[in-house]
């Protein structure tokens, strides 16, 4: 193909992914979050804007667009401003390697990179930097403490996620996400790797700072955590980053364990979305089921429970793959 066609494809693909994630993950995600929270707590949730309140997040976004954006006097303006671009961008970069479905011409993916899951791990590790920068740049005690807690938590849970990624790469013999889905044609990896699936879900919940691991933005202690000082659209961009990362983690879990886009009768993209939303529902369900961890419990849970378990699981898998099956 000539270079300008490739360029056009890349630009259009990017715009589709960005607006898709902003609408499907962030706007719909916030709405779902509120509706499901309401349902679990026997409330109704938002009702006023649009039929049954479905346009609530649209209204919220428009409201946020009209808000003034304020840089605190004591803040470090450069770091304060760059953090807000880094966090959503790093979260959205994850979507490059996520296969959404399949068509006659091949899998529906932005780009099937050779180092697929490693790329995912690398880009999501950039979010930690954005959060630290936001916490520091605000020069606000709540924000700084929230940012630090968040960073300590996220780095602790990157290790179990990495170990799980390696376990799956070992089974599939590849780092490419498309190959991993293809290898699940007969058997989803959740069947052979239930422990890894549970570790991944727990670690992913913590990695995206969600309840019960949400002490980073424990409202009663730290206001809004590292983005306390951000107003208007900047606040919305952090929210976008958080929801995008949550959906990316759920989509990665679908890709690694639930056979990705595979499923009978319905089109592949629909299957992918069904599985994705099922996992997102689990995330939201968990939020209202477990009480919040303390920071020591949180770090202990990763280092003393998830990591040894993930290591054990990896060695057992390696033993089966490399010794028993040969």
């Amino acid at each position, binding site marked *: 193909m000539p270079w300008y066609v490739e360029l056009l494809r890349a630009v259009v693909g990017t715009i589709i992914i960005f607006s898709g994630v902003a609408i499907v993950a962030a706007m719909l995600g916030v709405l779902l979050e509120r509706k499901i929270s309401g349902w679990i707590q026997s409330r109704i949730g938002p009702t006023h804007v649009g039929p049954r309140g479905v346009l609530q997040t649209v209204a919220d976004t428009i409201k946020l667009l009209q808000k003034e954006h304020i840089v605190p006097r004591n803040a*470090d303006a450069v*770091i304060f401003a760059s953090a807000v671009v880094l966090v959503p961008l790093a979260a959205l970069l994850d979507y490059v390697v996520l296969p959404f479905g399949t068509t006659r011409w091949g899998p529906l993916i932005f780009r099937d990179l050779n180092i697929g899951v490693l790329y995912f791990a690398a880009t999501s590790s950039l979010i930690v930097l954005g959060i630290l920068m936001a916490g*520091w740049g605000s020069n606000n005690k709540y924000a700084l403490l929230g940012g630090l807690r968040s960073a300590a938590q996220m780095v602790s849970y*990157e290790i179990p996620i990495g170990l799980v990624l390696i376990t799956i790469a070992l089974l599939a013999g590849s780092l490419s996400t498309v190959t991993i889905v293809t290898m699940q044609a007969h058997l989803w990896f959740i069947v052979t790797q239930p422990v890894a699936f549970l570790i991944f879900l727990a670690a992913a919940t913590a990695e995206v700072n969600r309840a019960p691991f949400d002490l980073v933005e424990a409202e009663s202690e730290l206001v809004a955590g590292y983005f306390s000082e951000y107003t208007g659209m900047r606040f919305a961009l952090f929210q976008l980053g958080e929801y995008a990362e949550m959906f990316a983690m759920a989509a990665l879990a679908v890709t690694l364990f639930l056979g990705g886009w595979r499923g009978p009768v319905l089109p592949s993209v629909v299957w992918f979305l069904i599985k994705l939303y099922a996992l997102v529902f689990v995330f939201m369900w968990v939020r209202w089921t477990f009480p919040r961890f303390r920071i020591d419990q949180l770090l202990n849970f990763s280092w003393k429970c998830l990591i040894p378990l993930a290591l054990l699981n990896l060695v057992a898998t390696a033993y089966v793959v490399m010794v028993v099956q040969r």
Partner: protein
Amino acid sequence: MTGEAIAFYVLAAITLSAGTVVATSPNLMHSAVALIPALLGITGLYVLLNAEFVAGIQVLIYAGGITVLILFVIMLTEGGTGLHIRQRNEQAAVAAAVAAATAAVLVAVASRTPWAHGAGTLPSYTPGAIGQSFLGPNLPLFEGTSVVLLVALVGALLIARKEIRE
């Protein structure tokens, strides 16, 4: 200009300008933050050099790990209070001369030497090739790194912990 050349010059510009901020900024925190684009620029160069695996590792370890450590330590020590402290020592002029001279010699050597081009092609799948090599001829290296890491962990914990207990 080809795409490769454009990419090279853009990445080189990012790396060098961010590197300049790292080396000269009077604000420590800005230096540390500027390290991120510098490292990411170098990551891009690895990609251009067909070393995607090294590129991934560069982001994961350098940007996601070492930079976080550096940011933590700056926050733990001087932090924002270090803003008004002189950051350059008395040898700054000498240091600049030495650094410029070293760079000049290296540039001269690099651009004058007729570098031989090796035969063969890069393996198309670098993680696989690296894995083969690590479990084949480079096995001692592979096991050795884990010992080095263990020693580093023990040493760093000893140093850091001792101070806490006192």
